[in-house]
């Protein structure tokens, strides 16, 4: 378990911790969007110069192999407040409870942490920076997250977040956030991200949103609405009224727009929806069917599919509109293109070989190469934000979510549902969200997620049913 930090961090952390405890327990608030500060120096004590092979030193060498894939025990007590104050977001003591709950839920849902079920005692304000390690260790926690919330005089809230290693009794990280009341939940997600990144090494992903198609109604006349929510389900909002089917949404990288396909006026086409104003504009004004839009990483282009004369190909058009440029021109169905994280390449699906397979090409359409060669069909490719993997839907009797390397090969299936499709990567490339449909006359679709290693397959709770999830970037 990650419960022992190396000593350098421990000593530095303890020193600062002790110093803090002796003064009023107020950490350094760091307002958004500054980079996190961990208050501890670089973790590694200086090693041998030159990094020589240890064997050459003539020292005894002991080899140890060990490790387990299991969640880490962590305690997250309620975040106390110095004064109970009413704020537009609620009373600060209740906010403290809910903040701890947000952190707990985020960490638990990642599958890598096991928050304590019992023994989570209330923590008073002074204890936040002077934890009772013996108690928490006895309760089974290897790590401890403590924090506080305070209403500032000007209407904003300050949330402090501390991460401790229980066994070495050291502070590992701390951050503070000053937020307007409407964004108080983000402070909880940022705190969870700090804890998660420090202990796992992964990038953060909890402070992000998901756009998706909310579904309700009977299978033959389903109402499909555009919706947006925080990745944990909070702050859910419907963006269209359901009178026209909405499909295939994507967030723009600057998170100000959603591109999606709507059947409004019985003309299925791509619209650019401005989140703040709620207004939308038609992206490509002609009568052809346009769908499956994606915004390029630099925000300049929208990649999309258009059917002309019965032939669907991949095009791109400037984000603000213009003349579409054709990128594929085979007589097959070419669709579903998505960009690599650096925007230089595109992966898409095409049935030009006879069945749906995955292809990679440059962003200008050149050098199209097939990368999938297994048995079965491949669809809906999405490139990991880390750049080293492509996720897809594998069709062969059932629909399953899989991953492969961008050159093809190293194929691995992550889920085993009957109809899992449409994966979307979390901002740190560690989790995939997709939708799973049940069959039969009452069949419904729901959002699910799975860890990159194939563990922790879980349903993502949504207000109604859902499909077509598109995970947005980390919020700054």
């Amino acid at each position, binding site marked *: 378990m990650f*419960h022992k930090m190396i000593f350098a961090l421990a000593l530095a952390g303890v020193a600062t911790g002790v110093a803090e405890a002796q003064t009023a327990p107020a950490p350094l608030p760091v307002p958004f969007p500054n980079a996190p500060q961990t208050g501890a120096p670089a973790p590694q004590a200086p090693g041998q110069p030159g990094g020589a092979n240890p064997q050459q030193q003539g020292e005894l060498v002991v080899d140890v192999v060990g490790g387990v894939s299991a969640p880490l025990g962590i305690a997250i007590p309620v975040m106390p407040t110095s004064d109970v104050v009413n704020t537009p977001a609620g009373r600060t003591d209740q906010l403290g409870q809910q903040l701890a709950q947000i952190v707990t839920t985020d960490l638990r849902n990642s599958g890598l942490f096991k928050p304590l079920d019992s023994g989570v005692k209330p923590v008073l304000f002074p204890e936040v920076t002077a934890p009772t390690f013996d108690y928490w260790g006895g309760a089974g926690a290897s790590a401890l997250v403590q924090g506080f919330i305070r209403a500032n005089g000007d209407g904003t809230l300050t949330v402090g977040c501390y991460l401790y290693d229980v066994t070495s009794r050291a502070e590992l990280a701390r951050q503070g956030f000053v937020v307007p009341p409407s964004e108080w939940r983000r402070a909880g997600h940022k705190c969870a991200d700090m804890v998660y990144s420090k202990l796992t090494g992964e990038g953060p992903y909890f402070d992000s949103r998901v756009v998706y198609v909310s579904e309700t109604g009977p299978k033959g006349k389903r109402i499909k609405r555009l919706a947006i929510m925080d990745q944990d389900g909070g702050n859910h909002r419907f963006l269209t009224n359901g009178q026209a089917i909405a499909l295939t949404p994507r967030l723009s990288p600057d998170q100000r727009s959603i591109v999606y396909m709507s059947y409004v006026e019985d003309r299925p086409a791509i619209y650019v929806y401005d989140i703040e104003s709620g207004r939308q504009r038609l992206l490509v004004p002609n009568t052809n069917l346009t769908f499956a839009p994606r915004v390029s990483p630099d925000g300049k282009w929208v990649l999309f599919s258009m059917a002309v004369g019965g032939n669907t190909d991949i095009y791109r058009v400037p984000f603000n509109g213009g003349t579409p440029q054709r990128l594929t021109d085979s007589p097959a169905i070419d669709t579903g293109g998505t960009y690599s994280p650096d925007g230089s390449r595109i992966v898409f699906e095409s049935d030009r070989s006879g069945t749906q397979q995955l292809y990679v090409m440059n962003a200008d359409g050149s050098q199209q190469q097939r990368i999938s060669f297994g048995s079965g069909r491949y669809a809906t490719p999405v490139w990991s934000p880390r750049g080293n993997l492509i996720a897809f839907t594998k069709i062969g009797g059932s629909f399953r979510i899989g991953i492969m390397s961008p050159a093809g090969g190293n194929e691995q299936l992550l889920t085993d549902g009957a109809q899992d499709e449409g994966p979307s990567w979390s901002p740190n490339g560690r989790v995939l969200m997709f939708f799973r449909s049940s069959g039969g006359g009452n069949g419904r679709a729901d959002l699910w997620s799975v860890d990159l*290693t194939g563990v922790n397959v879980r349903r993502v709770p949504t207000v109604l049913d859902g499909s077509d999830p598109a995970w947005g970037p980390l919020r700054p």
Partner: protein
Amino acid sequence: MTQRDGLGLGLAVVGHVAVFALLSLAWTSAPPPPPQNKPIEVSLADDVALDQHAPAAPEPPAQSAAPEAGPPDDAPPPAKVAKVTPEPAPPKPQPEAAPPPKPAPKPVPAPKKPVAEKPDKPVKTKTPPAKAAAPAAKTEAKATVAKAAGTNPKATKPRPTGSLLDDDFRKGLTQAPSHAKVSQAAPGATMDAKATADIGSAIQRQVQPCANRQVIPGPGAAKIVAYVRLQLNRDGSLAARPTILPSHRGVDDDNRIYVDAVDRAAIATFTGCAPLRGLPPELYDVPRGWKVFILTYHMPG
């Protein structure tokens, strides 16, 4: 029986005989004899030492080495001395080896020195010098000491023995303590292959439960090998902060983000199960002893 019958019978007989002959030949010509095993020299030693010289730690004694010579003055011919498993550190009776951390520049063993340092011939016969066979050496030493008893550097009685152990030699004998580093090791204790393996597995056994609890952070992390230098006190507890050596193995672009987590897990593998118990104190402060050692760690998968 007609002539034809007889002819047929004869042919049949001849044919049978021919077949038998062929078969016999086949037997004789069949398997070539198995190759003979050349005899290999096998030495049945209980303990194989890596070091075939006196341990470096004890400094060369302050005394000068005398050429091999005849028997000491008033000692019976040490005909059996050659049998002594020549202990590098002067094998003394137990009490002398113990607490007083003085090396052995006592006069008594001095004359033994030349004998003990029987030159390079000993390379072969020395193969069984059990460093750990100190007890055996001690008994032998006792015997030898007994045999060499009475040698007195101050004895200057000349003897027409033709021995080269003359006055000059004796002048070289001093009681000045060797400048060797003080070693608390039992005489003859060094980390040979067996001790290394024993201590290695003793340490590994004790930290294994902590290793097994470390959480694998993500895919590909199992390829990373981390090296931690640990310094222990005699009681098995940590004497200083563990240091991670900068060179890792198995890091690639895909698992680089997990290096920190693997490093922390490597240290936690030790700190969670410290202090270590039951490690032999006599092998604490010897070269490659367990006072300072490298823990290499990686996760399974």
